[in-house]
């Protein structure tokens, strides 16, 4: 079998939505390369989840083992390595989640192979896929390919593919894969999972959000943001560094490790637009960005972009809004 193996991600018997995005990526690639997709599911007592997954018409390979009851990097990489050695897939695809960040590089290293991580898309050059990932925090794109024998490992950025594009109608078989975990030592002990800060503000309900990034430079300058928020009748949110530095409480953070919002208006001030921020706000209605760097990635998703110094533009803008 020279297949495309897509590694699913589940916790407590529930699939992560981004698994389906990776499956869609796999299906598209499979079509280009004339291959088939198998979804690999790991865990303990996951028969129901396997059936449910296969119910969407995809072929599912299940590894059910005591040592995979909780996710650990040792358990996952050892189990996947055994499957890979038996099945020799051409490609192993992942969604670039925090769990995949935790074990996929280890798996790749144990196979002596490259993992092209956090790809935003692929494109075909003849019969060879070229994988595109971002460097310099999204300011520049970079092309990578694979050479030599597989397996080729690729992780795709969350939302790189649309889960709704899933091709259904396949036969939906469930296969069991045996692994021998006797010699595998699980060195990490997994303790509890918990929600961090108690969310005191629910930004997801806000109609308008003014969001501030490191471009604001100093906590003293936050007053300008307050004035802007008042003028627009908006809630205040921030990028991660602003919360890290304690200039705003953590529950105001938007992004992959913070809140996900979709207001009518998202007004981003001095935010560069790193992917971890974008995933938390890209579904907003109208996106405005003020940034002095014309190449800031935030402009790629903004409807209106002001290239300029926020300290010059904002006071004028607040005046203009008040006059409306």
């Amino acid at each position, binding site marked *: 079998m020279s297949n495309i193996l897509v590694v699913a991600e589940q916790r407590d018997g529930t699939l992560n939505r981004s698994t389906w995005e990776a499956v869609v990526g796999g299906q598209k690639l499979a079509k280009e390369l004339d291959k088939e997709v198998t979804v690999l599911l790991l865990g303990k007592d996951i028969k129901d989840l396997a059936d449910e997954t296969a119910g969407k018409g995809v072929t599912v390979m299940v590894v059910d083992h005591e040592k995979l009851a909780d996710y650990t990097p040792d358990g996952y990489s050892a189990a996947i390595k055994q499957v890979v050695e038996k099945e020799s897939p051409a490609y192993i695809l992942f969604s670039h989640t925090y769990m995949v960040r935790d074990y996929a590089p280890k798996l790749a290293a144990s196979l002596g192979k490259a993992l092209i991580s956090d790809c935003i898309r692929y494109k075909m050059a003849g019969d060879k896929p070229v994988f595109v990932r971002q460097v310099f925090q999204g300011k520049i794109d970079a092309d990578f390919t694979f050479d030599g024998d597989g397996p080729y490992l690729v992780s795709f950025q969350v939302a790189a593919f649309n889960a709704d594009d899933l091709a259904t109608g396949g036969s939906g078989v469930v296969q069991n894969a045996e692994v021998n975990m006797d010699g595998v030592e699980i060195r990490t002990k997994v303790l509890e999972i918990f929600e*961090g800060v108690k969310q005191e503000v629910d930004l997801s309900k806000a109609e308008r959000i003014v969001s501030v990034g490191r471009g604001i430079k100093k906590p003293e300058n936050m007053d300008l943001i307050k004035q802007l928020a008042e003028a627009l009748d908006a809630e205040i949110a921030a990028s991660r560094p602003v919360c890290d530095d304690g200039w705003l409480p953590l529950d105001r953070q938007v992004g992959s490790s913070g809140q996900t919002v979709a207001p009518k208006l998202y007004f981003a001030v001095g935010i560069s637009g790193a992917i971890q921020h974008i995933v938390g706000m890209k579904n907003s209605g109208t996106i405005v960005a003020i940034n002095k760097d014309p190449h800031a990635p935030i402009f790629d998703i903004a409807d209106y972009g002001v290239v300029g110094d926020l300290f010059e533009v904002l006071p004028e803008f607040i005046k203009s809004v008040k006059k409306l």
Partner: protein
Amino acid sequence: MKIIVCMKQVPVKDSLLKITDDGSWVHETDLNYEINESDHYALEEALRLKEAHSGEVVLLSMGPERVREAIKQGLAKGADRAIHIDNSSFTTQDPFVNARVLAAAIKREEFDLVLSGLQTDDYGSAQTGVILAENLGVPSATIVMEIQKQNGGIKVKRELESGWFQWVELPLPSLLTIQSGINQIRYATIKGIMMAKKKEIKALGLSELGLSESDVEEGQTGLVFSKIYVPEKTKKTEIFEGDPREVAQKLADKLKNEAKVI
């Protein structure tokens, strides 16, 4: 506790990047450099662990001659000594190769803990630390937001998505990749800067690390880098530029009358 901190020097965040004509990388000569953000937090965390439990903090940085500036800054903050690997002759974007070289340097030391950043601000592969752990044969945990020393090991808080966290326990030695925001970074003091002048920066080359040219060759993992370029725009953005007053008025008008969101 003996702690090794992997620290990369990267172009400062606000840099105006110019891509070379052949797309092989950006022009490096007119750039300013700084310590990679999450590595900076890793260093701070190492210094705090040393202050609480005594021990030694050793900096490990691979890069051209200029990275000595970052090393000196780390020494001024309180690291005890440093190792510099000059990679001018084998610069690669393959994290597997980079981790192999870093691992060779770490294997010459005894250590309880290796701390790296979770991701570089330039390459951003988010892989080097994890591969390094595999190479050293020690367990790892990523995206760490708190470290507690326990009898015989450590307990660490890992960040999960959307504001969730998880505690895990690891034996020592082990490797952690540190997330930005885990602590508040200190500034170097004048005294620290003076003291740093006397601290050792050991330069190590491939042969001292017991590695050969073939160990750092491109392509051994199958990875082929072709080029970098400015991303294509996918969304039509209306851009305003120029006089702040005019720009402000136009934007206010658009938001009120076109987008109808204010």
